[in-house]
């Protein structure tokens, strides 16, 4: 039967003492009974399509990859992504990116950490060998619209976690259409020449090899954005560039 209102209120009060908003599931705001690093309830945790197996060693794809075969010149060494970009993940990212629900940031950082760990196992390098983290920049217009750069926030979060310096190495010179629309070749030609190196930041970079730079982005679709960023960086710096993206 129903518990009396008085007792219910007391229970609620006691719960509120111990449980803050942080212990609610960030997706469905259900109360969490047990600790979870992702701050998700069990149902929401179970829907995450983690990438466990990578078929394409280059870009970390979970299925046979045609884009990497098709590309003439690849400037990054490896890319790793945490999850498969399915409808649920698309929804989650939209909640964060377009709706602006910034409470989800922590969740994304925890998830992208998974991709970062995958990259490290692949590389067999120690954490302190990663020189810098950088991110794919947004154009000024888009930044004003959205209020934040999701890739930058991911990078800063990851950098804080592993104490790796985060630098804004790239500037966006061209305001391109959203990369989420358009065909492969359109995306490829769109992105050409969209980035330049930020001269001020480059001066501060310690150029002593081995210089490893990881580019952070939210979604890796065909890889043209990442490849273009890598091309710009490698043409000015003697660096090895890797990609860590949240979804693939």
């Amino acid at each position, binding site marked *: 039967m129903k518990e009396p209102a008085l007792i219910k209120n007391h229970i609620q009060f006691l719960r509120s003492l111990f449980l803050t908003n942080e212990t609610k599931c960030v997706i469905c705001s259900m109360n969490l009974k047990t600790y979870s690093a992702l701050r998700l309830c069990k149902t929401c945790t179970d829907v995450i399509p983690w990438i466990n197996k990578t078929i394409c060693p280059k870009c970390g794809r979970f299925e046979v990859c045609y884009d990497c075969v098709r590309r003439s010149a690849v400037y990054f060494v490896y890319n790793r992504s945490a999850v498969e970009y399915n409808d649920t993940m698309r929804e989650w990212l939209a909640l964060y990116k377009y709706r*602006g*629900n910034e*409470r989800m940031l922590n969740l994304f950082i925890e998830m992208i950490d998974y991709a970062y760990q995958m990259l490290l196992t692949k590389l067999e390098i120690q954490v302190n060998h990663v020189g810098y983290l950088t991110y794919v920049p947004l154009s000024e217009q888009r930044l004003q619209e959205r209020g934040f750069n999701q890739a930058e926030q991911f990078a800063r979060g990851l950098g804080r976690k592993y104490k790796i310096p985060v630098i804004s190495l790239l500037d966006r010179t061209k305001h391109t259409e959203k990369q989420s629309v358009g065909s492969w070749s359109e995306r490829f030609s769109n992105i050409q020449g969209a980035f330049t190196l930020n001269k001020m930041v480059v001066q501060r970079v310690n150029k002593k090899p081995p210089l490893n730079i990881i580019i952070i982005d939210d979604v890796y679709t065909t890889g043209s954005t990442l490849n273009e960023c890598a091309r710009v960086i490698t043409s000015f710096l003697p660096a090895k560039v890797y990609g860590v993206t949240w979804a693939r």
Partner: protein
Amino acid sequence: MKVILYAVHPKIHHIAEQVGWRWYISLNMKVDYQYWFKKMKLPYIVLLHPPLPLGAALTYCKVFNSNHDAYTRMSQNLKQVQLKWIQFMYQHRKKVRLNEKVYKQLYFETIQPYQVLGEIDFQITTSIERKWMHSIQGRGLLQSEFIQVIQSEDYMNDSWWTLAAQYLYITGKVQINSGITVCAQQSLLQQKQEYICNRCGSGQDAMYENKCLYCGQDCIYCEKCITMGKSRYCTPLIQGIKKASLQTALQPSVHSSYKVNDFSHWNLSEPQTEAVRSALTFLRESTQINRIDEPLCYLIWAVTGAGKTEMIFPLIEHEITLGRQVMLATPRKDVVLELQPRLQKAFPHLQVVTLYGGSTQKWEEGDLFIATTHQLIRFWQKFDLVIIDELDAFPYHNNAMLQYAAKKACKKQGRYLFLSATPPSQLIKEIKRDRLPHVKVPVRYHRNPLPVPQRVSFPSLTHLLKSEQSFLGDFNRLRKEKVLIHRIKDTLNRSGICFIFLPKIKYISPIVQFLSSKFKHVNVQGVSSIDKEREQKVQAFRKREIHILITTTILERGVTVPNTDVYIMDADSNLFDEAALVQMAGRAGRSAQYPNGKVYFFSKEKTKHQVEAIKQIKEMNALADKKGYLKNAGEGVN
């Protein structure tokens, strides 16, 4: 965003009743220069550098403006006054969330006309202004929404909207508020900070703090109404002030064709007519009472199947003829879409605007608005009458945000009209205390009494499903289930349809299996909220292709099929409250051909909810009998 805070002195601008400095904020100083220097001919204004986050600037602005004595009196020395101001700002920097770094940069500058007259390079014609006013009055819009409204009118460049907003603000056509403000009830000196969202009314719990690009410091936003756009501490919420009355632009023909007490053309039954009459009396009288603070409420408590929608029509007609704007808010989008053609047909000369998620008429202006409840959030003191359909249904019921939005959408002198078959307990209490004006419609349009539920003692479903394996349980079940099977057979023999409600989704499939094994030649289906074929199944049910439909409370409203009998299993479950039981019971006997549907409560225990639900239905029948509404008076009441 960041805005500029500045002060002007009234002595200079000849307004007698103002005694001190007046403070304003500015999104675009060009407008203010033009207004104060060209129009009001002031010799100077005092401007604060650097720009502050909007929320902080507005709070300072409010405090300075309300505190004439301490901070706004003109003393001998302007420098001294300015020092005082800065000291004050320093004292309250934490309360307004001002960054320490920003505080250190604060200084005042006196601006004289010759310095800035070159900057005034814009022209706003009265026609543009009228257009703006038309599309913005009575709305509360966030920056991004305001830009959409203004840009669709006249687009020049990116900062065009700030010019428009500032122009409307300085001329008193809009109020500029921040999306979130520091709670007003708190005294200034108290350390504890409380924030509320000006848009949805959410308090501290809904706030989330993080770094903000637009104001360059830690900012807060509201998580509750984020699906309708982000309301921040530094985002302007632009509220268009509605002109007092709108008695314009109505054809005289509308007036002449309207007769106050004649609504025979709506084809209402006698009970409906009587209810409409008393509601109209309320609408008429409420405008004559002078009120300033709160809109008045009126409740139409009409039993299920009374024809609530039909009763709204004459009320809308009344309001519209007097040139008032009406909002009809309903919980679901399909209802909005269904009502639109009906209302447009009834009022062909009116501009009917429908609003829902993804509506194309989002920013249109009209006479009559039909919207889902969430859309109310974008209005601000616009409507003279807000009608809220199915008050007790999801999502309006127990949703503080939507209730706040409804309150805000209504003018201060406006009225609410609630429609419900099962008002929430709080309203029933108020009715008993005689605080809420209301009218009851105790009978259905076909004037037959409501079917009174019969309670049948029955084991709980959990027990029944669990005991399937046990030997003793099997024996018990065989005896018990007869009670159910017997009644279902009876319904089917009368070529009726069984509508079976269960408290939980997980019971559906075992019951479906069980019943289809018992009734092999009958179409038995189960529908729940997670069912993908839900729409098709409901359609099939409406076409009488399904004879036994098993479902949860999701179909407690809206689905009406002639000649149905209602079976409520586990009626003692705490998931079924009084309102739900009455609603489900209301599915039976809806049509005039088959007015005597049967309703059964199958339960192990006789709970308060069941007793109250039966009592409520009986009371309504008794009232209908007393008023002589029933077709065969004295015969039909159980």
